[in-house]
């Protein structure tokens, strides 16, 4: 993974000092809350219902075990002993005191971490595929490009006061685990007819009030032009994006308003002026950054896929189910990537205790190469585990209550913080996720239903990505009562689509039954081996509606 050089370290050290000074000026009253707000936000510090919330950046989700240990330390020392994994692969703390934040940042800086631009109207942390570098079908490792984008966007002097937040995601694999089509800019590594590698550039995806699937504005961008092209897009957006209405300020609205062709022309015109300038990436720089992501020292192992197939016949049904759902084929024979879901009955989805952070960090040392990835679905991943050690790893995870076999299953729920923490919420998300988990967590049910994503948001801002859940749940407020709207058929993968509303909103105490009936309907409607998503797409929502609103 990427390691800081002197320059990176200096920038982060100076950032800690700068924020320290800003906090001091806020506490002394020299700056008002209004002036402080954008400053704290650009450092990931929100004000929520009960306390400040600090979002720590985890660039493209990648952590060393030392960094995860440090996150555990922060949770214990300055928070309430836990953290939260976000859908954009970051880590959030719900209870830090303002005067402690500079100390937290100093502690993070020691392990090359920070909270730079994890909120605010600026370019946010770039996200990516959690199986980057190991996925079997991957064309090329996206992480070097994520890192180049991280450096370009960090304290970019021109783009610190954009009309609205700006999110970029990169995938190097045809299977999209990074949700690139619902980002402001989505980047796919592609190959052109000449066999050269470059990027396809998509713009204007996003959720919220106006959900949009991103549109392609360039089929092929040479690698050396990545940063100048991004700069051209951001410049067009900074100048022309709306600033009169925050709900119409994202780039997707600008792309809608101009039309994708006019938007592309504006970008290309801006790009023509800068593309051959100093921003062109040099071969040395591409090589320098790529070097940080060279594969670890794999052993050459026998048996690979056959060994894994054999293990799935294990008499231990829970282990076999875990292999089926949580273990992903790997580029290197004899290895697999393992997802550790932090979702099981009684837990808020995505929350992880300091003890579990430490435990996973240790397991990553023993069973992997000391690296851990945070996934878009708010789980953890150890990307390189020997297949012949999977059983030993699972036994340890199971002892920690982290061995749940539910990655991409009904209880692998994405839920936003909702009304329990968030000041913008209309309804609670976490208790709904917990009640659903309680109902659906039995292995027979999970295996019976198979691949399924349930995504829950506490309001239209859609932080829980409800539009792109196979089942989406959106909290609304009806005269002070919590109601939930159900949506079916969403996806954030390569076949991205927005869910369709099933029918009238459902009161809180009936929502779990309603979801249960959706699953029963699926089981009675599906063809052999048909995924939930494909079934909804084939039969349409009406057949489901008849069976849910009885």
């Amino acid at each position, binding site marked *: 993974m990427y390691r800081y050089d002197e320059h990176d370290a200096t920038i982060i050290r*100076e950032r800690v000092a700068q924020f320290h000074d800003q906090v001091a000026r806020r506490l002394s009253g020299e700056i008002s809350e209004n002036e402080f707000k954008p400053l704290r936000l650009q450092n990931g510090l929100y004000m929520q219902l009960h306390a400040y919330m600090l979002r720590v950046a985890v660039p493209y989700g990648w952590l060393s075990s030392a960094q995860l240990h440090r996150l555990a330390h922060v949770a214990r020392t300055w928070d309430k002993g836990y953290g939260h994994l976000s859908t954009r692969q970051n880590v959030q703390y719900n209870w830090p005191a303002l005067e402690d934040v500079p100390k937290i940042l100093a502690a993070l800086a020691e392990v090359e971490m920070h909270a730079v631009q994890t909120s605010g*109207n600026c370019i946010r942390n770039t996200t990516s595929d959690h199986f980057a570098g190991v996925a079997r079908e991957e064309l090329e490792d996206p992480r070097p490009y994520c890192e180049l984008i991280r450096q370009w966007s960090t304290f970019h002097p021109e783009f610190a006061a954009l009309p609205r937040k700006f999110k970029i995601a990169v995938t190097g694999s045809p299977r999209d685990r990074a949700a690139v089509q619902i980002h402001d800019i989505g980047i796919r590594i592609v190959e052109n007819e000449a066999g050269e590698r470059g990027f396809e550039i998509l713009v204007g995806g996003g959720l919220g009030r106006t959900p949009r699937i991103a549109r392609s504005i360039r089929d092929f961008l040479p690698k050396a032009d990545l940063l100048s092209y991004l700069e051209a897009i951001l410049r067009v957006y900074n100048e022309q994006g709306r600033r009169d209405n925050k709900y119409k300020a994202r780039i997707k609205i600008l792309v809608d308003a101009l039309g994708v062709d006019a938007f592309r022309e504006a970008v290309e015109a801006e790009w023509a002026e800068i593309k051959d300038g100093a921003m062109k990436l040099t071969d040395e720089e591409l090589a320098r950054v790529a070097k940080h992501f060279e594969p670890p020292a794999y052993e050459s192992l026998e048996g690979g896929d056959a060994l894994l197939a054999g293990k799935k016949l294990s008499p231990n049904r829970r282990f076999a189910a875990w292999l089926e759902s949580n273990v992903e084929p790997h580029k290197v024979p004899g290895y697999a990537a393992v997802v550790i879901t932090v979702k099981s009955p009684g837990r808020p989805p995505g929350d992880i205790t300091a003890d579990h952070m430490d435990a996973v960090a240790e397991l990553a040392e023993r069973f992997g190469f000391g690296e851990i990835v945070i996934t878009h679905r708010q789980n953890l991943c150890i990307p390189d585990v020997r297949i012949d050690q999977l059983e030993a790893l699972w036994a340890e995870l199971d002892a920690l209550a982290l061995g749940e076999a539910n990655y991409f299953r009904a209880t692998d729920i994405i839920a936003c913080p909702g009304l329990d923490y968030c000041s913008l919420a209309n309804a609670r998300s976490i208790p709904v996720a917990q009640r659903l988990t309680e109902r659906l967590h039995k292995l027979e049910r999970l295996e019976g239903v198979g691949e399924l994503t349930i995504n829950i948001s506490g309001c239209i801002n859609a932080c829980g990505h409800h539009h792109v859940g196979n089942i989406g749940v959106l909290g609304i407020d009806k005269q002070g009562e919590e109601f939930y709207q159900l949506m079916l058929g969403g996806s954030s993968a390569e076949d991205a689509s927005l869910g369709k509303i099933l029918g009238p909103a459902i009161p809180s105490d009936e929502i779990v039954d309603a979801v249960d009936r959706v699953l029963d309907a699926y089981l009675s409607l599906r063809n052999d081996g048909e995924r939930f998503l494909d079934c909804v797409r084939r039969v349409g929502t009406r057949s489901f509606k008849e069976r849910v609103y009885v």
Partner: protein
Amino acid sequence: MSESNSRPSILVNGQISEDAWRSVDDESPVPSEGDVIVSLARWQRDRPELGDRLGRTAVRLDPEHSGRELADAFDALDMIVVDFPKFTDGRGYTIARRLREQLGWRKALRAQGDVLPDQVFFMQRCGFDVLALRADKSLETAQRALSAFSVSYQGAADDPRPLYRRRPEGVVRSARAS
């Protein structure tokens, strides 16, 4: 002409200086001497008359402008001003970089309006060398903020080269030594 135009001090190239400039609105007569700032509309309307003055002349751009409006007036002007009506409106940064890096404006470039100490580092990088801070803000804090960072990743108006074109081994070594 109103009193509020006479700010006591501004930062010029990082130094606290007297502000010699006064803004003239679109209707008031322009004095024939002294340094004045007029709007783009006024400049476009009264260009011949403004060009005849003894004092220096500057034109103020608003966020909806691009900077290209003045491309043919560089010789006639002594300073360009970019107004920031709200500090959260970042269009002025793009205008500044375009003026400096694409259109080649070399003379003074002034940021004014809702200019706060925590923006000046970025403003300076985008090419502003005159910073008229909001009247209630501390020039000393702003001065300090100008050196918030000693390294930047991107190229900008202050140095067009991104870090990867400035990264000779010598620089890395000397940083390590310190």
